[in-house]
């Protein structure tokens, strides 16, 4: 029998029954309010020496099922066994799995007596030490050795001598931590001066920016910024502080537009790289990567993605002859229990729980709810409240409104604390002052329950995440923002019929990406995924999905593979406006991308993507693009600056400017302090809808979009915008409810003011400037803060921008700006302003969390002191 055959036999037959018992025992220990079945209520009896020997054989396998079995045996030995020797052996087995974090956790929990090495025999000790040496990497910049797992070791040792690298591993494999360490090491120990870290959402951008700040520490020679401003970039290029920029793909384009070219980026990291397949934003990501690599062909590039099937796919666009490598891991680091929760007939408060093993369910026992759940949301909420009572419990809701409702239900089942934790009170205060006195989050967090969605202000969202991690928030109800990329793990995740976006059942790989959040490596040994009503076909149309990994496929490739539909769309697009063309939603983004490539090269046959497709398809597209290109005079330079915006739309806009008979000054946006500003935006948005792309729809809502944009640009706080929205409804006797208005205002800010408006208004202004130069009215072109940057950050004054450049969130910057008289302060002026008034900050009625942020960012000495207390 070969080793592989022995390993297979062990898992399939030799240990089958014992592994199932281990699984039951381990899972039962994780669930609250559970009455185990009679057999499991007795003392466990396991043949530990047989199990551990088998575990050490399985640990040598690379197969996920084998590694999982070994991890289960090791975890059980540490957490269930009574004797020190068995626990020690469990720790040794974890060492064989290179799971040093779990060993450290066992020591922290007192499961493992200190100084394990001294209790091992000589040969075991030598082996353990050799393993630790093999599984440690040298951080060159500090000379420190860092213990790592197999995936981390392979990443580190290969990243050095490959120009393009694509790494994929399940959530909780320590990917982000390692990549950040590697990035910092590269910046400190190589000639690289500018690095860009691309993340798909602003939520992840602020998280990564914060994490880098902590890892770098104060007085670092490397700066971190998420603002696309010229100053730090130029400084880094001319010998000043090195720079790590953390951007979304849109922000990278903004930056490249401000600089002129993306040249100078030495290192590019693309996190959540599988999102290159996302609808509309996938192609903008692809374009951003290509733009950087075009401007600097020797850029070092690392793609990072969670549990993907084909990480090597991302390497196919690497320049010819450059060394590339894919690093793939499927090894588990924490145990995951998939648990099904089904209501017992005629006893609504009693639920049967069972664990999934190889597609079959293994009964665990009966969960007792506090109260009968009537209605679907209550089923989700009450099961979560009962099974996850000890905290660390994440509940997945399909919409922000549902997240608020479910959180409200859970909070009613949790005991009211005698005294509220000060950190929770501070968050409640921030929610009341920063959003609205009646924002539902405030009373919930006082009871240790919260909700979380993408449109929340980042300061509040990151504080919610922080307090959930620390255990003070025990239940967190979240939406798909979490799958879109926030590194937040939990002990238990509870789901009922999860959807992604508006109503689409979740694909298996999305489900497993979400499920991957269960299990905090280094904080817990296990994670639990509880699926409520798994047999309900409305909730789970395809049942609970089997384990699956993301297939990486570029959006551009997927659209081109749809046969002639794209070429036919382009043919129609040549004749009529995008608003009237069927399929604009499906084809406009990729069509614009190809048109720009065509304008740049005169054909798409030489692009990287051409080699992946049938030459006939490419020739057909080239013919359609040639017809479009004939109508376009704006040139590739402007088209390159506006990914996702069709060059044809830009051309039509230019023609509209040429045909305009009024005073050209009226084509420019009015400054936001002017009374004309709001109305001018209405007209400009109308022009954009008509000529460029129907972005601000329906037309009847343009005034609302314009109002939000003006208020946002004026630096108005979210709280003030919500207040004004409520006043408007009251004045005009329109019915409203406060939670909905709050969410709608947040959505308008995020979607209109921060996403659509920068994208389309900066394109509008670029074309207008082209026109103004052509007619000799260069006097009208102001060299001010770029409109895209103003909109993304919601600033129009130098002072506000300076405050945000210093690292403040917009919420804190606006709160502080309300107290600052001058609108033209530089960063140093702002620091000086705060230094002079430090003692008065507390009396200014600013929420404590904001004051903490102001101190940390503007008074680094005070921040450092605070951190040490």
């Amino acid at each position, binding site marked *: 029998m070969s080793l592989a055959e022995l390993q297979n036999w062990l898992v399939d037959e030799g240990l089958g029954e014992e592994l199932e018992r281990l699984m039951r025992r381990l899972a039962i220990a994780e669930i609250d309010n559970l009455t185990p079945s009679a057999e499991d209520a007795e003392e466990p009896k396991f043949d530990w020496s047989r199990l551990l020997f088998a575990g050490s054989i399985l640990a040598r396998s690379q197969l996920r099922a084998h590694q999982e079995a070994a991890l289960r045996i090791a975890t059980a030995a540490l957490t269930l066994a009574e004797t020190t020797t068995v626990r020690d052996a469990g720790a040794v087995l974890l060492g064989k799995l290179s799971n040093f974090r779990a060993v450290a956790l066992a020591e922290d929990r007192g499961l493992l007596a200190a100084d394990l090495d001294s209790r091992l025999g000589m040969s075991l000790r030598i082996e353990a030490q050799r393993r630790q040496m093999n599984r440690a990497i040298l951080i060159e910049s500090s000379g420190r050795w860092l213990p790592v797992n197999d995936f981390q070791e392979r990443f580190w040792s290969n990243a050095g001598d490959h120009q393009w690298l694509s790494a994929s591993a399940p959530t909780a494999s320590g990917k982000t931590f390692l990549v950040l360490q590697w990035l910092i090491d590269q910046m400190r120990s190589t000639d690289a001066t500018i690095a860009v870290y691309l993340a798909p959402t602003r939520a992840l951008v602020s998280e990564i920016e914060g994490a880098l700040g902590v890892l770098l520490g104060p007085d670092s020679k490397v700066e971190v910024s998420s603002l696309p401003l010229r100053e730090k970039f130029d400084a880094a290029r001319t010998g000043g502080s090195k720079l790590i920029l953390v951007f979304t793909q849109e922000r990278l384009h903004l930056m490249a537009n401000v600089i002129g070219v993306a040249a100078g980026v030495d290192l590019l990291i693309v996190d959540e790289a599988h999102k290159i397949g996302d609808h509309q934003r996938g192609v903008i990501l692809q374009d951003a990567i290509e733009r950087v690599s075009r401007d600097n062909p020797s850029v070092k590039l690392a793609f990072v993605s969670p549990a993907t099937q084909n990480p090597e796919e991302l390497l196919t666009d690497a320049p010819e002859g450059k060394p590339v490598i894919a690093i793939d891991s499927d090894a588990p680091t924490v145990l995951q229990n998939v648990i099904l929760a089904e209501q017992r007939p005629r006893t609504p408060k009693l639920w049967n729980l069972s664990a999934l093993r190889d597609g079959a369910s293994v009964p665990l026992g009966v969960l007792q709810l506090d109260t009968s759940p009537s209605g679907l949301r209550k089923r989700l909420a009450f099961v979560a409240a009962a099974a996850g009572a000890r905290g660390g419990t994440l509940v997945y809701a399909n919409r922000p409104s549902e997240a608020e409702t479910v959180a409200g239900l859970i909070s009613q089942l949790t005991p009211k604390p005698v005294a509220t934790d000060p950190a929770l009170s501070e968050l409640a205060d921030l929610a009341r002052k920063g959003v609205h006195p009646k924002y539902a989050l405030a009373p919930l967090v006082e009871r240790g329950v919260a909700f979380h969605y993408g449109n929340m202000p980042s300061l509040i969202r990151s504080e919610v995440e922080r307090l959930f991690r620390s255990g003070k928030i025990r239940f967190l109800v979240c939406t798909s923002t979490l799958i879109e990329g926030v590194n937040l793990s939990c002990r238990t995740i509870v789901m009922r019929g999860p959807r992604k976006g508006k109503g689409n059942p979740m694909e298996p790989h999305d489900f497993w990406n979400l499920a991957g959040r269960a299990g905090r490596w280094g904080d817990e040994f296990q994670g639990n995924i509880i699926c409520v009503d798994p047999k309900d076909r409305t909730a789970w149309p395809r049942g609970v999905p089997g384990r699956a990994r993301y297939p990486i496929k570029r959006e551009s490739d997927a659209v081109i593979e749809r046969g002639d539909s794209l070429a036919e769309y382009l043919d129609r697009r040549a004749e009529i406006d995008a608003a009237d063309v069927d399929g604009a939603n499906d084809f406009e983004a990729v069509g614009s991308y190809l048109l720009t490539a065509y304008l740049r090269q005169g054909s798409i046959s030489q692009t990287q993507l051409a080699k992946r497709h049938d030459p006939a398809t490419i020739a057909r597209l080239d013919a359609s693009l040639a017809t479009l290109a004939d109508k376009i005079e704006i040139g590739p330079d402007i088209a390159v600056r506006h990914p996702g915006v069709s060059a044809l739309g830009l051309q039509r806009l230019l023609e509209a400017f040429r045909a305009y008979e*009024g*005073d050209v*000054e*009226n084509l420019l946006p*009015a400054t936001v302090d002017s*009374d*004309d*500003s*709001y*109305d*001018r*935006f*209405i*007209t*400009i948005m*109308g022009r954009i809808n008509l000529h460029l792309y129907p972005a601000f729809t329906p037309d009847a809502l343009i*005034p609302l979009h314009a109002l939000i944009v003006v208020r946002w640009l004026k630096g108005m706080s979210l709280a003030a915008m919500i207040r004004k929205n409520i006043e408007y409804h009251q004045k005009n006797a329109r019915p409203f409810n406060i939670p909905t208005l709050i969410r709608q205002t947040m959505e308008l800010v995020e979607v209109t003011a921060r996403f659509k408006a920068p994208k389309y208004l900066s394109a509008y202004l670029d074309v207008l400037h082209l026109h103004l130069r052509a007619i000799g009215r260069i006097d009208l072109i102001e060299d001010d803060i770029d409109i895209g940057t103003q909109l993304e950050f919601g600033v129009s004054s130098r002072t506000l921008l300076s405050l945000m450049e210093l690292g403040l969130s917009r919420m804190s910057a606006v709160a502080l700006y309300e107290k600052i008289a001058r609108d033209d302060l530089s960063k140093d002026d702002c620091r000086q302003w705060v230094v002079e008034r430090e003692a008065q900050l507390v009396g200014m009625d600013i929420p404590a969390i904001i004051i903490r942020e102001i101190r940390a960012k503007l008074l680094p000495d005070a921040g450092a002191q605070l951190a040490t207390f």
Partner: protein
Amino acid sequence: MTKTISFGPLDFARKLDAEAFLKAMLNKYDVGDRVSAQDAEILRDALALHPDAAAKIGCGVDSFSVRSADYGTKCFWINRPDGSTEKFSFRACIYG
């Protein structure tokens, strides 16, 4: 007897003609536009005929804009030198 009305040097045989003239001027502009210097001259003369001219003009007229008014319509606005602004109906300038 034909009622005539004049905005400075511009004479209209009928008030309806004056109304049509100012209406065409208004419609030439999009909301948010500044009124051209040439049109502003005429508007100054028209505004003088407004029954509340003194209150509307206040501390003076710096420029005119076209902005949105109630119910999705648009109208002329006076921009005063002190930064304040006030809308007015061109029909009131003609019909009082």
